[in-house]
């Protein structure tokens, strides 16, 4: 493998972005895509970079992998400066880029892996065992000699990920890796990425619109980018905790419209044809009073728990609240 040595250091960062910014155009037509951003990613961490379309996620990732020249700032990948040590920096990265094929459709999966392995400086003898391992792992071994263009979208994306991993890079940049995949393929992918993070300790920078399924479950840390600016960068649990609400959520089976009038002030309800949800302010006495009332009316209780927002809810709050405070951890700006 191209990773020849492994060094233990105290302050090693996989990705270090300092004042990185990008403005397209000049003068009156200048359009900032990413405002000067400082971000760091320790080895082995999974960072979910979230944002709406056009927020600057892809531009930021492309700057990190050297596919877009920044107008300000610098990037270090695996300790190597992208400007002065590009060749070495490239050996640290595997990438799956958004919405693109990433691999050559007229070539077979096997030929693609040989090409991308050699592209990273490996010899055929080094590539073949790794390629076999990846293709078997992804259930593509039997069809390895077929043209990638004949594969399903999920299989094509598997080949793209295999190509990104062919030289066993320590850092993975995954820009919308589940885009266009069906539910089953997306789930397979999520499990695979989770394994890369947990078992192989890859450092992963991930963008996705599947906030709950992918980002919340995989990311150690979440950064939210809005209009080219990172407005939040916190460990996932801390981010959710900061947006936790001091209220209880009671779930009941069935549509119980008649309950609405009997609830105390401050309660909110959501009723559909097979479930009723009640949110109460964090008041133990009030909670017990409502539970007593529900027992008396014979309502079927499903669950009672402290209400925690989903990542989707937090994300939407951050995006739609112009006054949302910047929440950035020390780690992010180190």
């Amino acid at each position, binding site marked *: 493998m*191209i*990773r*020849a*040595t*492994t*060094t*233990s*250091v*105290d302050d*090693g960062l*996989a990705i270090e972005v300092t004042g990185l910014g*990008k403005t*397209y155009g000049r003068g009156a037509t200048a359009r900032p*895509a990413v405002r000067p951003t400082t971000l760091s990613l*320790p*080895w*082995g961490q999974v960072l979910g970079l979230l944002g709406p379309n056009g927020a600057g996620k892809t*531009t930021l990732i*492309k700057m990190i*992998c*050297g*596919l*877009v*020249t920044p107008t300000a700032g610098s990037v270090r990948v*695996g*300790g*190597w400066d992208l400007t002065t040590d*590009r*060749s*070495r*920096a*490239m*050996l*640290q*990265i*595997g*990438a799956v*880029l958004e*919405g*693109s*094929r*990433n*691999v*050559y*459709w*007229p*070539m077979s999966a096997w*030929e693609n892996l040989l*090409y*991308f392995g*050699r*592209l*990273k*400086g490996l*010899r055929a003898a080094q590539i073949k065992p790794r390629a076999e391992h990846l293709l078997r792992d992804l259930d593509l071994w039997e069809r390895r000699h077929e*043209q990638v263009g004949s594969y399903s979208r999920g299989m094509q994306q598997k080949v793209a990920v295999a*190509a990104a991993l062919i030289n066993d890079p*320590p850092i993975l940049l995954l820009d919308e890796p589940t885009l266009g995949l069906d539910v089953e393929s997306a789930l397979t992918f999520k499990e695979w990425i989770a394994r890369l993070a947990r078992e192989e*300790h890859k450092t992963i920078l991930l963008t996705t619109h599947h906030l709950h399924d992918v980002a919340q479950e995989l990311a150690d840390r979440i950064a939210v980018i809005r209009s080219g600016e990172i407005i939040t960068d916190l460990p996932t649990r801390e981010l959710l905790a900061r947006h936790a609400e001091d209220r209880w959520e009671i779930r009941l089976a069935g549509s119980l419209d008649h309950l609405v009038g009997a609830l105390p002030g401050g309660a909110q309800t959501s009723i559909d044809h097979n479930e009723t949800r009640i949110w109460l302010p964090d008041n133990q006495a009030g909670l017990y009073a409502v539970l007593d009332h529900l027992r008396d009316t014979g309502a079927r209780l499903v669950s009672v728990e402290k209400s925690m927002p989903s990542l989707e809810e937090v994300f939407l709050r951050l995006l739609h609240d112009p006054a949302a405070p910047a929440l950035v951890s020390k780690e992010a700006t180190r």
Partner: protein
Amino acid sequence: MTAVMPRALPRTAVGPVLQARLLGNEITKGLRLAWRRKGMIVVGTGLNLLTYLGINLFIGGGHVITGLMVRTLPALLAVTVAQAAAVNGSGGIAEEINGGTFAHARLSPGSPLLQATGRLAALAVEGLLSTAVLAAVLTAWFGLDYTGPSATVLPAALTGLDALGYGLLITALTLRINSIGAITHVFNMVIMFFGGMLVPVTVFPGPIQMVSHLVPTSLGVQAINTTITSGLAASWTDGTMPWLIVHCVVLISAGLVVYSTAMRHALREGALTPR
């Protein structure tokens, strides 16, 4: 926090040996992709053959004038190499940009120029194979007699380089110009008309002859013809060979400069992938 930090290879690994392997990798990829579209190459070669025969029949009033064909066939072969380099170079890079593989292939220790060189080398092989087929078919069919073939190796090689320089320039322009396909076809037509494929450039009036010498492969074809009829020394003394060398150097240099500039521009504008 103590982290495990992987490091890349020591300095020597990103040296000339690796660069040579990366170049070989690009050539192999180019040849694989060419093989996948072999049907198109066969059709293109066949169309070139038919077009050339049609032109010859038109000029000869329904007959092929073998004396003329002997002098225009080198131009057909040069046009074939130039077309392979320009059309497939341009089309290939446009396809890769739209497909995303162009950007992906940049995640490599290799330089953009090294990758472009590999791409062009594969196209040269493709063009030369078509050329070999055309030359073999026409020579055998019409019993064309080429004397002193060994002496023509130098001007032929320089003509090939000239055609590749043109291909590199068009490939580079593809990174900047959206409608490069149409422009390439116009340029190819100019090369067909003023490169000596219809009639030798020497039959043109003086000013047109001068202008035609600016057209890629034109000087090369003239040098080949001069070498065939009067020997290599004659092509040096009449100035064709020195100007051919100048033409090659200028065209290849222009291709390299434009490619480098266009790559820097594409990186600035985020144009390695569709935006």
